């Protein structure tokens, strides 16, 4: 912070500043705040659109009954969808973190240089594939395969575990939580891998050299020195990956089965908060209460995503990188 020229100039405008410099500072500040205006505008207008509708405690229940003919029995509890979001995002993230830690470690330290020069951009490219492509791939190619091969096999071998049992009708279509988790994992891996990889690369060379000089193998150095060194970055990569997963909509929408129920099995269908907004949006235009409920659920989703991302970015920024070895 202390030596950063831009920040220093922006934070103390008056001292010996010409009028021109002052306006430069002012317009710079205005431009810099544009993203903030957007966030405020989005939240404010959505809150307005929700009409401050109070659904009471049933809003947090499992009772989803958008029946528009009888407002007295209508209920908009989104607990089922929160569970759907939590299960898909959390498991996908856990899998993605394991995968991306391995990938990043290999790319940075263990692959021959030409392979690592190839692997890094290819991983990044995965992030550039439009999510609808993942969705259609999952729906057209993977879903039949999951229903005929993967799901029966997993139920057969892991069926004794809670949540891993299912009747054939539950996975008949192949779409469901497990496929959504699989697709989400692939979508999150590039992000977490890039973050972990960059932190690994930013570790001062001296640390590694010190480890090796003490007689540790490269693997021991990685495990005992480098990975503990970037713990915080790994955690923030996880948070940012979670933010990506919980907000992902189209691909998940196409493969999750969209069942409005509390999931009983990993092979059954479910709905996430994000996919609910897509599937119910058109109906909501004719049912005002449903529209307000969806707007409020969207706000909840936004708050979750924003806070997860904010914490993740903040941790990433506070990285304890020292020395010139940090630049790649």
């Amino acid at each position, binding site marked *: *912070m*202390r*030596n*950063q*020229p*831009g920040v220093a*100039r922006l934070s103390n405008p008056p001292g010996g500043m010409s009028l021109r410099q002052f306006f*430069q500072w002012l*317009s*710079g500040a205005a*431009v810099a705040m*544009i993203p903030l205006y957007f966030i405020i505008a989005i939240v404010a207008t959505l809150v307005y659109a929700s009409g401050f509708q109070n659904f009471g405690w049933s809003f947090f229940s499992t009772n*989803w*009954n*958008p*029946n528009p*003919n*009888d407002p007295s*029995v209508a209920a908009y509890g989104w607990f089922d969808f929160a569970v759907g979001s939590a299960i898909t995002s959390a498991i996908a993230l856990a899998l993605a973190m394991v995968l991306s830690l391995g990938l990043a470690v290999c790319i940075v330290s263990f692959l021959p240089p030409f392979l690592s020069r190839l692997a890094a951009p290819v991983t990044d490219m995965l992030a550039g594939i439009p999510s609808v492509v993942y969705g259609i791939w999952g729906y057209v190619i993977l*879903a*039949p395969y999951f*229903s005929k091969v993967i799901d029966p096999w997993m139920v057969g071998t892991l069926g004794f575990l809670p949540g891993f049992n299912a009747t054939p*009708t*539950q996975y*008949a*279509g*192949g*779409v469901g939580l497990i496929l959504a988790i699989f697709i989400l994992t692939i979508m999150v891996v590039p992000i977490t891998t*890039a*973050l972990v990889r*960059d932190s690994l690369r*930013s570790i001062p060379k001296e640390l590694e050299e010190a480890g090796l000089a003490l007689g540790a193998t490269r693997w021991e150095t990685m495990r005992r020195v480098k990975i503990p060194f970037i713990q915080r970055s790994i955690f923030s990569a996880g948070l940012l990956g979670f933010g990506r997963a919980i907000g992902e909509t189209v691909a998940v929408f*196409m493969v999750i*089965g*969209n*069942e*409005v129920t*509390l999931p009983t099995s990993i092979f059954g*269908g479910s709905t996430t908060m994000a996919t609910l907004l*897509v*599937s*119910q*949006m*058109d*109906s*909501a*235009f*004719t*049912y005002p209460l*449903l529209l307000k409920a969806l707007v409020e659920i969207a706000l909840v989703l936004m708050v979750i995503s924003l806070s997860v991302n904010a914490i993740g*970015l903040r941790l*990433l920024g506070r*990285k304890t*990188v*020292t*020395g*010139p070895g*940090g*630049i*790649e």
Partner: protein
Amino acid sequence: MTNAQTAQGTQDDLSGGTIRRKSSMMSKGAAAGLAIVLLIVGLAGGVVVGKYVLSSSSSGGGSSAVTSITETGSSLIFPAMSLWGPGFSKLYPNVNVTPQSTGSGTGQSSAEAGTVDIGGTDVWLNTTTATQDTLLNFPSAISAQLIFYNLPGVSSSTHLNLNGTVIAMIYSGAITKWNDPLIQAANPGVSLPSNTIVPIHRSDGSGDTGMFSSMCELSWSGWTFGHGTTIQWIASSPSYNGNGGMVTGLSNTQYGIAYIGISYLSQASAAGLGYAALGDNLANSATGGTDAANYVLPTSQNIAYDANLGLQYLAPPSLAVSLILGGDVVGTTNGPTIYPGEGGTNPTVAYPTPYPDVNLEYLLIQEHPKDLSHQKYVVQFLEWILSYGQTSQYLSAVNFLPLTPAIIGYDMNSLQLVSVSN
């Protein structure tokens, strides 16, 4: 992001980097300047473009300029509209039609807000709202819904006999097996498996769900889920997105049953799915009726017959009507209602049995729009739909059926209500 952070962090610690810092300061100033310039150019451009768009739309409707009729709404109406538009423009080259496939809900809300000329919807706008907003429900074609099933061991050329009561019970979980006595009684000679029925529903809000839930509600008093484009379902019912998704989902789900629009008949048949002959509520073994003649297939004749039956309940001037089970006064939701004309109610008259799961595709238009001179093109277009638009050249391609002459008569009358000026 990470790289930028890293670079910044390192800069912090480069105590001797004065020159470098200066140059980065200059480039930062330049970047900020550039950003401001771009912002101003962008804003100015936006204002200019916005002004142009606004002025061109308000001056629209002149005789020399090309007028655009806008339509948004039901994805079921969209294919028909995409054929009707160019067909109309052949006769009226100075008018073009721009349809959008958004959804019935969007069609209704856009028509109410007046942001489009025509809102397409599978479910009529209820009479109260239509009257308040002086909107007209304008039936433009007839469609039907089929009940498909994936039943291994039963040939897809065998049409199971089902009716609204049995279907509502299946979707409520009151009937769970294919060889349930109620189903077996209506299908003598068919060997039904003892497997569990998997009732499949639409996950997205849709007019098909609206039709289907209406049929269930009107057929069986035990139906507790009401009707609407999105409703509550039993937990054991999987769901798929769109009619196409229903076809795929059902073909992947053995012993499943699903409601699918008639437009998808060829796709579903290609996937080896069978569809049911539907009966009215008297053809219900629960009430003692097992007359096989009361179960009918969705032929154009049976569908048109249902539509004509429904006409007697049509509610002018809004033209809102449910054709489910041969018609119901709009807004009536009280249990099963038997209407005169349905097969078997009057044994002395040999009425044919109507196919019960039939719907009108509605176009919503403003009765008293702001721009009266523009509205005359909209009325011209609707008149064209009632005449040329009903020919098989347009409707067969999308599996809609032409309106019956009686409905066309109602439509022509209601068009008289629309304010236009030359």
